[in-house]
């Protein structure tokens, strides 16, 4: 039972217990979204998607949220410590309290839009205006703890909040965040970011999965996947390899053109 506009349910799981959460979902009869696998999080995917047979919405089991650049376990511990209980469809549900929820909402708003905050500013402003002054201070503090301060620095500035000193941590994650936001629809770029974040010895296997797991980025619906057949799936994988090659070319070209130290929106 969800609000009319909901298309999925996002559940943040304790990363240390992520496989337990997956097992519980499967024991309850939930099915992996085609192309997902229970080790998706090991490939850098932030969620593993399940479908409940007959239900229109999917359920994303998150081990992490993009844009929260601190290690996933630290992020979870922070958000869990900052939880409160609300009633969702009359059932008690733990959720981040408003200050922490703002941080999660903000990175989620910004991650799928190109650099800058203008397009998302009205939504962020509405959420920000619902916070008390102490909650706003806490939101900035939580953003710093979970590594979202630099991803949200522009948003905080636009909202008139003082984000404080630059957080020098998580430089690689911040680069990947900016690269993804530069072209949010570029799944090839997202995969390259994932591959690049892994040790060299793991990268060949990741590249293979990048081509093989056509559905990991939800580029196919379950219905499309089921209807594709072996030939359609092969074509999809060839196309994915082609797009990956183009993504490498684009990122290499952009890196050569970008002045050193630049790129902060």
């Amino acid at each position, binding site marked *: *039972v969800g609000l*009319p506009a909901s298309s999925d349910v996002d559940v943040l799981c304790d990363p240390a217990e992520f496989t337990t959460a997956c097992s519980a979902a499967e024991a309850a*009869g*939930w099915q992996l979204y085609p192309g997902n696998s229970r080790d998706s999080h090991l490939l850098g995917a932030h969620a593993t998607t399940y479908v409940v*047979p*007959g239900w229109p919405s999917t359920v994303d089991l998150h081990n992490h949220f993009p844009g929260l650049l601190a290690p996933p376990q630290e992020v979870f511990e922070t958000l869990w410590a900052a939880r409160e209980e609300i009633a969702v*469809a*009359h*059932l008690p549900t733990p959720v981040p309290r408003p200050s922490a929820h703002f941080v999660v909402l903000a990175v989620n708003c910004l991650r799928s839009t190109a650099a800058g905050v203008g397009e998302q500013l009205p939504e962020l402003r509405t959420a920000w205006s619902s916070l008390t002054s102490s909650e706003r201070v806490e939101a900035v503090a939580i953003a710093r703890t979970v590594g979202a301060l630099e991803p949200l620095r522009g948003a905080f500035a636009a909202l008139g909040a003082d984000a404080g000193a630059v957080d020098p941590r998580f430089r690689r994650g911040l680069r990947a965040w900016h690269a993804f936001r530069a072209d949010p629809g570029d799944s090839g770029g997202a995969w390259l970011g994932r591959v690049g974040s892994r040790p060299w010895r793991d990268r060949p296997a990741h590249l293979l999965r990048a081509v093989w797991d056509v559905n990991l980025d939800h580029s196919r619906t379950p219905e499309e996947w089921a209807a594709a057949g072996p030939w359609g799936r092969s074509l999809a994988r060839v196309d994915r390899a082609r797009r990956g090659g183009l993504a490498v070319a684009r990122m290499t070209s952009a890196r050569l053109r970008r002045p050193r130290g630049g790129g902060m929106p």
Partner: protein
Amino acid sequence: VSSPEPDVVATAGAASGGPWRIAPRVAWIESGEEVLVLALRAPYDRLPYRLPGSAALIWLCLAEGMDLAGLIAELGDGQPERAGEIEAFVCHLEGERLVIPLHG
């Protein structure tokens, strides 16, 4: 949410007389003139119920802890057959473990 409506055919036995409460792990919302109800328990193979009209009113009264006599007085319009339908519907909800006795 696409869903079957509950079968309101009378089932064997009578409702316990109430009052009732909504069973644990049953999610429900009001949506316009309807109430949508979903049992969140294994094996998760049930689709949500859509309760329209008087079924929604009965549900809301049950959620407030009303007993069978109260339901019939409130919604029965003084008609015996209407009282029977209400009792059958509550029986159905109990059978589906969507509502349980308040002090059960």
